[in-house]
């Protein structure tokens, strides 16, 4: 919302000189390409309701393409539909379908190529390969679009919103479904991803590669093939997101791989096979997250140092924490664990005996996955109990010395 005044000034400033050019089947100008050709800089193309069978539309001057009652732009599976190569372009209110599929080039519904100050909003994309593709773009905004794919195979489908070598971009209030990766970032820094819903995608709801200083907040990621993957990136802030129902052999809420200095705060992980899967990640703060009904709340797979887990709620997960080594360099403090059976004699709200979140059984399952079939058997309860009394296989310093007696209530993060 805070961007609005800037755009307002931009529009009004441009409008002083600009004119509106209507495009429709009965108008003087019958195609969008023709409209762009006729238009001067900062003009608005007013595209009326109708079906425009066009592709390879290149926007090479600062224009506004404004759709009236969602005109359909049908690419007829022939290739890319709109390519923006000029700064200061706005695309608003279009219905784009039938993007061509190719194994050699990444055709997109809308591609922004090496330009700045763009706005893409209220666009509906269906039957697509790639949806909105930002290539070396900057200072733009992707707002309130709806991207519904029909992806079946990973190899023959593209991503909903892709950012490649892009900077300072806001991705806000979009809905992305049934594509390969809902939102994909590669080499893109200072990106804000907020209030989006990314669900039912083949692979990841959100995917970071080699991108730094990004924020994603208030998004919902549901029922994606694997969840959200954050890889080889630094200083990512992940706050107030919801990760739900990422059920499957290799599924998780978040996969963290080679991530440093990130913050994971106020998120909810519910009914995922693994809530957070961490590999080679350091100095990450996990605070005020809720882990509810996951198979594993957190799975730590080696080489993770200086992480802190504070004030989180672990509720009814089959396993709270899984470690595959005897080493522990991470801190667990003041979390609430629903499996905690200790007492609080001094009534200070903190359990008097420490809680050990790593069960022997989770160690065994790490070693031999098939043993999961013995989950919740009496035998396992017995050996878990004996391990709890005297740890042999699990890191003996891995404990929450001050577990909470009641759920930690978080104040909303701003």
């Amino acid at each position, binding site marked *: 919302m805070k961007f609005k005044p800037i755009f307002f000034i931009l529009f009004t400033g441009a409008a002083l000189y600009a004119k509106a050019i209507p495009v429709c089947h009965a108008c003087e100008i019958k195609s969008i390409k023709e409209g762009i050709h006729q238009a001067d800089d900062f003009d608005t193309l007013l595209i009326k309701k109708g079906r425009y069978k066009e592709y390879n539309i290149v926007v090479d001057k600062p224009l506004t393409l404004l759709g009236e009652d969602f005109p359909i732009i049908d690419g007829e599976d022939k290739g890319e539909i709109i390519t923006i190569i000029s700064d200061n372009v706005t695309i608003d209110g279009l219905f784009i379908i039938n993007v061509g599929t190719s194994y050699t080039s990444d055709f997109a519904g809308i591609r922004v190529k090496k330009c700045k100050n763009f706005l893409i909003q209220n666009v509906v994309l269906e039957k697509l390969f790639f949806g909105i593709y930002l290539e070396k773009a900057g200072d733009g905004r992707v707002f309130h679009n709806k991207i519904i794919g029909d992806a079946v195979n990973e190899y023959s489908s593209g991503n909903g919103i892709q950012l490649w070598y892009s900077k300072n971009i806001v991705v806000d209030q979009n809905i992305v479904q049934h594509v390969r990766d809902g939102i994909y970032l590669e080499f893109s820094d200072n990106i804000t991803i907020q209030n989006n819903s990314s669900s039912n995608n083949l692979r990841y709801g959100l995917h970071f590669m080699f991108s730094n200083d990004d924020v994603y907040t208030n998004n919902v990621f549901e029922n994606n093939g694997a969840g959200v993957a954050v890889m080889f990136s630094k200083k990512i802030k992940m706050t107030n997101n919801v990760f739900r129902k990422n059920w499957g052999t290799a599924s998780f809420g978040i996969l963290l791989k080679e991530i440093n200095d990130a913050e994971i705060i106020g998120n909810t992980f519910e009914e995922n096979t693994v809530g957070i899967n961490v590999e080679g990640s350091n100095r990450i703060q996990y605070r005020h997250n809720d882990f509810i009904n996951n198979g594993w709340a957190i799975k730590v797979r080696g080489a993770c140092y200086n992480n802190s887990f504070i004030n989180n709620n672990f509720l009814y997960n089959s396993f709270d924490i899984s470690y595959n080594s005897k080493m522990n360099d991470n801190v667990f403090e003041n979390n609430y664990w629903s499996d905690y059976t200790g007492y609080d004699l001094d009534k200070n709200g903190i359990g008097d005996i420490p809680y050990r979140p790593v069960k022997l059984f989770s160690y065994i399952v790490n070693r*031999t996955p098939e043993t999961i079939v013995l989950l919740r058997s009496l035998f396992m309860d017995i050996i878990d109990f004996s391990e709890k009394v005297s740890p042999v296989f699990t890191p003996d310093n891995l404990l929450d010395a001050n577990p909470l007696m009641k759920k930690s209530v978080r104040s909303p993060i701003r």
Partner: protein
Amino acid sequence: MPLPPLQLNRPMLKILKYSFYDLIRSRWSYVYFLFYLALGFVLLFLNNDLSKAVITLMNVIIVLVPLIGTIFGVMYFYNSKEFTELLLAQPLKRSSIFLGQYLGVAGSLTLSLVLGLGLPFVLYGLFRSEAIWDFSLLLVTGAFLTLIFTGLAFNIALSNENRIKGFGYAVLLWLFLAVIYDGMFLLSLIVFEAYPLDTFSLVASMFNPIDLSRTLILLKLDISALLGYTGAVFKQFFGTNTGLFVSIIMLFLWTLLPIWRLAYISKRKDF
């Protein structure tokens, strides 16, 4: 009332009726019933969390129901020895007598379980809750386990004149199926981890009614995706209706086998 598999005849129904009446008037049925009632209320009204209650209940059903079925079955059988002899002198078929008694015991235990746990949950508002299917599955599995373990207990008692021995064997059987079997299962999984173990795990959990029930319930609760983790075979099997179907068939077999053997050895035994 569970449908007994062997032919139902009128004398058997009568014996069932009398054993059942006898049992539902005994102190132990009340203790058992009140225990479940108390458990249900405590879980629900102190915890206020239906799904956690269902998980705790699962642990209880997996461990306690078989134990109580076994102990109760053996106890009833030995305590009603003279009554049985009275019946044996009557113009009754032997199988009718023992099946009638068996169904009486298993029936009253099942009733205690279903009513004891059912009441608090119904009062709590089960019918308006999504947990009703999980809960029904719990009760169905509990009923199966009662039938199976009472049947096994009757078999043990019928084969052992000596009460102490009979009790010992019954407790051992429970211990074996509830704990030792899983220990051996785990060990073999770890020892042979280099080999594909899907089919083995599948078969091994089929051959223990406690494991089978546990797997069935876990499928509904939290394990379905976790099972996927172990590999395709297991998931394909338990994750589908076929798996559910086969599991239920196996539970039926586990129920029928002791009943069949009961009828078989009762025909050949001296009293």
